[in-house]
């Protein structure tokens, strides 16, 4: 059986999670990629755990690892895209590199949890299908007897609704 990572490592990952995800999002601004990159970075970090001096500031190391993994994942993603979509993604990537992405903390997650709980059942189902099962709008439309455009609009509205809800409880920050 696999052993659980040591708790100092766990704490360390938790402390740097936002940093890695934020950087990954800027370096590879494509849907779902930041999560994969962060996961891969920490996996590689764990497999070479004994090499690192955990008493030092790990941000420079994690930044290098994130850049490396992000570049690899981005290349792989680009390879699967048709030319026009690839041009768009590369343009977005170029613009994103100079931007700042404010990252979320535990407080924001707690507030969002409350906001999700307040949603009606149909909206929660939509959230679950889209964000948990990665179901496409077309598939959701088939399952929920809706038009694909209506699903996209509903998702757009839901994101906006959740953003407002979080702002309401977390006035100084925005989602």
């Amino acid at each position, binding site marked *: *059986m*696999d052993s659980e*990572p040591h708790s100092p490592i766990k704490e360390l990952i938790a402390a740097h999670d936002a940093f890695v995800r934020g950087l990954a999002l800027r370096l590879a601004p494509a849907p779902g990629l930041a999560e994969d990159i962060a996961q891969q970075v920490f996996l590689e970090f764990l497999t070479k755990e004994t090499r690192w001096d955990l008493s030092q500031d790990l941000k420079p190391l994690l930044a290098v690892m994130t850049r490396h993994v992000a570049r690899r994942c981005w290349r792989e993603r680009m390879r699967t895209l048709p030319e026009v979509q690839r041009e*768009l993604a590369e343009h*977005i990537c170029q613009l994103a590199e100079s931007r700042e992405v404010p990252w979320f903390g535990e407080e924001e997650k707690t507030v969002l949890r409350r906001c999700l709980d307040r949603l009606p059942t149909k909206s929660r189902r939509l959230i679950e299908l889209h964000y948990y099962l990665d179901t*496409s709008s*077309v598939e959701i439309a088939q399952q929920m007897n809706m038009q694909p455009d209506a699903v996209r609009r509903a998702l757009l509205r839901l994101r906006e609704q959740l953003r407002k809800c979080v702002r309401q409880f977390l006035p100084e920050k925005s989602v």
Partner: protein
Amino acid sequence: MNNRSDEGETEALIQGYLESSLNERESTRLNALLQQNPAKVDLILSGLRDDLLIRTVVAELMVVSPEQSSNHAVRLAESLQWTQSILRLLRKNAWTTATVGVTAFALFVFLWLWCLGPTVGTPVLAEVQGEGISLERSRQSIVPTLGTSLRAGDILRTAERTTAVIGFAPEATRITLLPGTEFTLRSLSRGKRFDLDLGKLEASVARQPPFRPMILRTPQAEARVIGTRFTLTVNSNATRLDVTEGRVRFTRLSDSSSVRVDADNFAVAASNYVLAAQPLPGKVLREIWLDLPGDNVLDLRNHARFPNAPSERDFPPGFETNTNWPGAYGTRTRAYLLPPANGHYEFRLPENVRNGQIRLMLSPDDDPAGKLEICQIAFTRNRPGDESPRNISRSQLESAPIHLDAGRRYYIEALHKFGTGEDRLAILWKRPDGVIEPIPSECLAPFKGNAKREKR
């Protein structure tokens, strides 16, 4: 007005980008909009960030912890307090009676769905084949019979040659425990939570209510299920999930990394094994071009019908063939190679090929674009009456040792062109432990190319 419609268009295009559903025209349009106003990239970044935040929280919500169960109790208490407030309001103001009545009814329906709805179908022992089944309840052993209701905390064990089925009527969910399995019903209060400590189960799970997935935990992994058919197998150091319908989120417990496993795919959670969804093994994709003259692979590659118009396609269990088809033909056999262990592998071609040519290519990943030739064999045509091949030309029967990782998949392709005589294709490998064998079918999964026409 124009600005507003532009805003609407930009929002719709950004939503399309976030869902990866933009077509070529929409992509070009969004690219043009970004060139006009590069600051719009902030909307994309905030959308990606929001999506990631929601995704993270939703994934956490799908797991029930004791803390969350207590939160649930708090929520119920809050709902009751709210009901009392409504009653007080009713006494004061008759005008709101109708509205409050409707609200109360809606609240009642919501609570009923939340607490008593179809979430928890009572699990019962629906079928048993064989006699060796035991039920442990509160540390006491009970002999279960058909129809025995199962409770949280119950542990079911099936002996060798015994199969048991747990039903959840009126739900269509059924879990079949195969011989030698130990299965614990951890909790049923808010979604179904089970432990599979050892053995194998097959499950057909009806759609579960929102945020209440069925969760199956093993010593190495966790499978979260909303509605699907799958098989879960546990041994002392690994858990394997095979999905035949729908999709399952599979999480490795040691590092919390997770992967979505779709239908006709499997994943393994174990140490020294990359967690990834792989196509179910046991077959390779073989394309056959019949009546194609020549005995050189170039005769196949340069033919007008190659690669997009094969005479037929089939899915044999491996590379090994001994077809003896009449006439000249060519084949392309494509698969994903699934190495069972980390280490160096050597690939070999058979020496007893009578004529024709075989070329074997391997990619460093699952992308055919990166394939490289690792070995090849070419025989000149036999003359009528020859008992053995005249000579072997440009042959490299063995590849160099190639490092492969267990859990990753590698694209492998064999091109085989055959002229006349006895034909045979076989690919052998030397595993890191030194065993030389034909690549077993459980280490091969059929290549699933896209429908686009390929270039030569």
